[in-house]
């Protein structure tokens, strides 16, 4: 069983062996994987990491795979951590970094959790895999399933961006376009997976799936010279990425790899679907479900976020905060990132940039803090958000005079 100890309920603390279990058997709360930390400490250290493969499996002691042969080798992870000096200057900050997951195999961070979940599906000889998705996960699951020779079924809201509907089909998956919201798709996907015994990565493989996302933080720590940032800004759909980032920090701390350092964890959602942000400022700290999300940030449009309560607790515990920029601010954020750092993010990335800008302006983030932005998806997947943003291009005649007219004169130098 490698370094895995078992599963533990985040809600009631009940413990289970590391079997195929999606939720706590007692209270239905979310489960998380626990490790034999003393054994991990023997094998997982800075020296050991040196020379390992440059993908997420370099952190294998903290990933719940028992059979290395079950891995699907699309090599996700170990993406660039870019020093974003231009963006920092534009926002009057000193030290900003961009964790660029636009360059993963299917152009989003979802390749990380899927790598772990599909490996588990292979370990357990499941007959098919699938997911419910706002787009990015559909492509990631479909690609990994293709490589693993597994049938794949992805449930999505039918109104998704056309690119996000296209990609899983190119990879050979069956797309189930549900006429409704993400939460409608989730309900019928859960029943379909349950009835057929398929492994749906973010439903019944969820405790294992979540582990893959920790590698975003492990890499950030390593790429910052084994240091944690002061602040990290995380886009939130279900809140699961944020809880995984926190778990990764907790594990590094348990291993003794980070001692006094603390990172403020900040969550960002679009104003048009911000159940976790609304919950953050509510008295009871519970998410406020949104029945009909309305935002350009489709990948974050989850109205009833399963990990929302945990995410709120973590943001409070780490002295972070929750923020919800408007769609206009998100689009501006995407543009600012592209024009200062050359990174084209999808709206989820624009959301984190917009939160950084807002928080710098109102003082929630200090000028001297080292900030890492998680840029979790590629802008090419959501071209539709730019409709109407730029005037149409009128063709220029292929002669120098016409080019001069177009450029506004013939001056040189």
């Amino acid at each position, binding site marked *: 069983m490698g370094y895995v100890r078992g599963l533990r309920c985040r*809600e009631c603390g009940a413990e289970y062996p590391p079997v195929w279990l999606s939720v706590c058997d007692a209270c239905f709360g979310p489960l998380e994987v626990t490790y034999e930390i003393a054994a991990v400490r023997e094998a997982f250290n800075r020296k050991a990491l040196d020379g390992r493969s440059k993908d997420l499996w370099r952190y294998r002691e903290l990933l719940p795979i028992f059979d290395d042969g079950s891995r699907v080798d699309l090599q996700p992870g170990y993406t660039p951590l870019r020093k974003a000096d231009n963006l920092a200057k534009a926002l009057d900050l000193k030290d900003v970094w961009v964790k660029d997951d636009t360059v993963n195999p299917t152009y989003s961070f979802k390749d990380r959790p899927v790598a772990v979940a599909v490996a588990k599906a292979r370990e357990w000889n499941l007959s098919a895999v699938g997911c*419910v998705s706002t787009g990015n996960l559909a492509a990631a699951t479909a690609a990994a399933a293709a490589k693993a020779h597994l049938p794949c079924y992805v449930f999505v809201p039918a109104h998704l961006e056309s690119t996000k509907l296209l990609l899983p089909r190119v990879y050979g998956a069956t797309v189930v376009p549900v006429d409704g919201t993400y939460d409608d798709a989730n309900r019928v996907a*859960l029943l379909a997976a349950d009835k057929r015994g398929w492994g749906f990565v973010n439903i019944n493989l969820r405790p294992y799936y979540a582990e893959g996302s920790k590698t975003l933080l492990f890499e950030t720590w390593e790429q910052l010279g084994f240091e944690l940032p002061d602040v990290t800004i995380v886009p939130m759909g*279900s809140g699961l990425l944020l809880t995984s980032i926190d778990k990764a920090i907790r594990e590094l701390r348990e291993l003794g790899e980070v001692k006094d350092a603390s990172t403020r964890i900040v969550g960002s959602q679009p104003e048009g679907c911000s159940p976790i942000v609304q919950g953050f400022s509510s008295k009871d700290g519970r998410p406020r479900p949104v029945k009909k999300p309305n935002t350009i940030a489709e990948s974050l449009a989850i109205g009833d976020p399963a990990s929302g309560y945990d995410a709120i607790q973590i943001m409070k515990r780490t002295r972070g905060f929750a923020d919800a920029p408007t769609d206009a601010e998100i689009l501006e954020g995407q543009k600012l990132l592209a024009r200062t750092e050359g990174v084209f993010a999808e709206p989820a990335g624009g959301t984190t940039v917009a939160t950084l800008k807002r928080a710098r302006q109102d003082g929630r983030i200090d000028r001297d803090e080292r900030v890492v932005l998680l840029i979790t998806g590629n802008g090419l997947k959501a071209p539709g958000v730019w409709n109407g943003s730029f005037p149409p291009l009128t063709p220029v005649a292929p002669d120098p005079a016409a080019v001069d007219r177009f450029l506004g004169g013939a001056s040189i130098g």
Partner: protein
Amino acid sequence: MVKLVLASPIAVATKGDREIDLDFEGTLAQLFDAVAQRYGKQFRDRIYDGNGSLKRFVNVYVNGEDARYLQGLETRVARDATVDLLPAIAGG
């Protein structure tokens, strides 16, 4: 007939039955009382917390509509309704 559909983690309390047909009309709370009569107290313990509210990680849908957006446990269940009882897992 009302059709009650349970996900397998909840169906532990209904002897593994995941689709239950009931000749019923009334509120959701009354529907669950009727199910508890058939399967025993373990069903109530499975879905309710100590205060008599649904557990936080249990979601109920009446004809596909989340009961939280309707009248909660007081939501009317028509004679031909479909009710889904699922653990709360969404997104990621």
